């Protein structure tokens, strides 16, 4: 069974004829190659290409039509882009970009196709088996009903008084979505775990936590939803994963212990790190985000990591980095894949503790919450302290002799849910902003505890309602008259930038964005 697994996705139109020609003339093809016929190479999304690797492929070849000969016109061009992005991801994961290859052939080029297949087979053989161990499908151990009953009790959902404060504050309801936290809670209490409306509601909640903030009985709705998603995942009622589940697949892939991840290879040279340091900087998934969204949205979330590290260097802190840093697992946990989350958490905690790290600094609110709160809560104790970079910066700046350069912009601030309401240092961003020297700072109508979510969480439930929410939020930001939207989470940037792509609203909601860490790092000065 140690045979290589090479998947050949081949376009129905041009190259498939060449492939058939090889079959008809009984030409010897490497038997490890499994051919899958597809309608067009451009229809192979990045998620589909990546899923092959997640499920154990050692090599994937996408074979399409020669540029210009595509039946649908743009297929080959799209395939090129998809393959390039996915190769970038494979490179970051340490699998090597050469495990995925794109080639194009005309129907009569059967010899060239054979040569390509043989060459690719030889190349994959040289690279060896992929270190990815496919994650087994979750076994439905405890029955869904029992698990749901346990979740209802442990989060004390019965305390819900049906008062409706949650529905009147829920940003999804306010955007017109037929969605009510208390109605869902009522249905689940009533035993309708698997009904279509409950499933849909469970997967469309943003887990932003406004309802929890407002609830007079302190029903912890976000945690309840998080755990209910486990029930549904086990029952096979799949979530509404955005980007076709690309990110969940990516994170599940990272649970393979033998991956030689290269998370930091792209770091600029002027940044000083120290492998012996007892302080570790945990970056988060920004390099993956930039590879995936860079082309379409132009986001540069890696800048947040670079600026964080430069800021640490400014304070004479030279942190260690985990070269093989994995995702913290936030999005897996919040889409119901607890088992994979725990595997990731173990790998991360082991890697951190192996280095004798005493303090982990992070600039990502989700990493912060996950490391500090969710790891211990899920039975993975941590021996290190987790510090958000805002906390560290505030303490260093407060020592004195540090000032800020003038910034000729008017700012407004998008609170990330995980900082403002769900466990993070909520007041710190504003304290830091008050230290800056911008031309002005204007708060949005909904802010702090009441801030509106950027519209998505854990790569699930992206639809027209979340889009409406994002547009609403951006309108609030524009209303302030500010010209720089300050964010504190890479995902806020991605989601809001995506909403700005709307071709009809265009300039009405467009706004420049920058992470608070970047602003601090770029204007901080010794006095």
């Amino acid at each position: 069974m140690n045979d290589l697994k090479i998947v050949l996705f081949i376009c129905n139109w041009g190259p498939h004829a060449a492939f058939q020609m090889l079959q008809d003339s009984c030409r010897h093809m490497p038997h490890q190659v499994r051919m899958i016929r597809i309608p067009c190479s451009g229809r192979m999304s990045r998620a589909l290409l990546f899923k092959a690797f997640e499920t154990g492929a050692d090599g994937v070849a996408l074979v399409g039509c020669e540029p210009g000969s595509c039946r649908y016109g743009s297929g080959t061009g799209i395939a090129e882009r998809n393959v390039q992005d996915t190769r970038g991801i494979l490179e970051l994961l340490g699998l090597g970009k050469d495990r995925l290859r794109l080639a194009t052939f005309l129907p009569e080029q059967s010899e060239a196709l054979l040569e390509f297949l043989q060459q690719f087979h030889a190349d994959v053989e040289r690279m060896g088996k992929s270190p990815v161990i496919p994650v087994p499908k979750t076994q439905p151990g405890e029955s869904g009903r029992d698990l749901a009953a346990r979740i209802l009790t442990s989060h004390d959902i019965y305390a819900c008084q049906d008062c409706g404060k949650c529905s009147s504050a829920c940003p999804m309801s306010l955007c017109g979505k037929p969605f009510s936290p208390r109605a869902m809670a009522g249905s689940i209490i009533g035993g309708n775990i698997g009904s279509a409306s409950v499933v849909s509601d469970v997967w469309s909640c943003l887990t932003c936590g406004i309802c929890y903030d407002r609830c007079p009985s302190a029903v912890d709705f976000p945690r309840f939803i998080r755990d209910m998603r486990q029930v549904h995942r086990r029952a096979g009622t799949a979530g509404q994963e955005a980007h076709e589940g690309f990110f969940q697949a990516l994170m599940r892939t990272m649970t393979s212990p033998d991956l030689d991840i290269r998370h930091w290879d792209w770091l600029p040279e002027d940044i000083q790190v120290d492998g012996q340091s007892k302080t570790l900087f945990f970056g988060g998934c920004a390099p993956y985000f930039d590879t995936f969204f860079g082309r379409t949205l132009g986001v540069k979330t890696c800048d947040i990591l670079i600026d964080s590290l430069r800021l640490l260097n400014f304070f004479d802190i030279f942190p260690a980095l985990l070269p093989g840093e994995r995702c913290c697992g936030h999005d897996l946990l919040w889409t119901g894949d607890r088992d994979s989350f725990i595997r990731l958490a173990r790998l991360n905690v082991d890697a951190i503790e192996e280095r004798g790290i005493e303090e982990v600094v992070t600039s990502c609110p989700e990493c912060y919450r996950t490391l500090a709160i969710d790891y211990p809560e899920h039975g993975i104790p941590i021996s290190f302290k987790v510090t958000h970079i805002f906390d560290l910066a505030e303490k260093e700046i407060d020592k004195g002799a540090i000032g800020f350069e003038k910034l000729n912009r008017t700012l407004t601030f998008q609170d990330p849910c995980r900082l403002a309401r769900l466990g993070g240092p909520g007041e710190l961003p504003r304290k830091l902003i008050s230290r800056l020297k911008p031309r002005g700072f204007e708060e949005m109508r909904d802010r702090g505890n009441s801030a509106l979510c950027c519209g998505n969480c854990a790569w699930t439930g992206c639809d027209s309602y979340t889009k409406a929410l994002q547009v609403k939020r951006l309108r609030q930001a524009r209303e302030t008259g500010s010209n720089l939207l300050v964010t504190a989470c890479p995902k806020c940037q991605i989601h809001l930038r995506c909403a700005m792509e709307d071709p009809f609203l265009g300039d009405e909601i467009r706004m420049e964005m920058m992470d608070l860490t970047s602003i601090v790092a770029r204007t901080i000065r010794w006095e």
Partner: protein
Amino acid sequence: MNRKTEPASPKEILITGFGGQGIVLAGQIVGKAASLLDKKESTLTQSYGPEARGGACSAQVIISDRTIHYPYVRRPDILVCMSQGGYDRFADTLKGDGTLIIDQDLVQPAAARGSGFFAIPATRIAEELGRRMMANIVILGFFTSVTEAVTADAMRRTVSESVPRGTGEANIGAFNKGYEFGLATLKGRQKKAEGKKGVR
């Protein structure tokens, strides 16, 4: 910077401010820390007006490795000013290479000063810490880190022994705040000298 070199001759320190700011107490703490804990010689003389509060007041401390024969400060090596009046009166007596320390919100220095000039918003920091009257302790912390005339440990112990009972912890917090501020100031100066202003 002259602060690195061990004082060959006695170090004369003048602390000035309003009555009520704790100027004399600050002088006492410096002198006690130097003599009782750092095992040096020190003297303290104080001058204050008849007013309990508001009048000009000063404390003169001399720290030396040898016996001190004359306890009055004529040309201070270190001048700490917590009021404009004190500054106006004593600024000219400061030695050419002396160190001037001011509360930047209370004192407007006459001209730009060089490497021997240090400023801290001591009263503002003390207010942020909850007690305005700790400004003297804040400035002592700052004084300790920028001048190194006395050791920080000796100062901390003396501070906690000298302040009213029950306020020790708060005062040590204030001292540390000023001390950190001093270290940060020195670090900032060093960075600037190396040509590093911002993150790059």
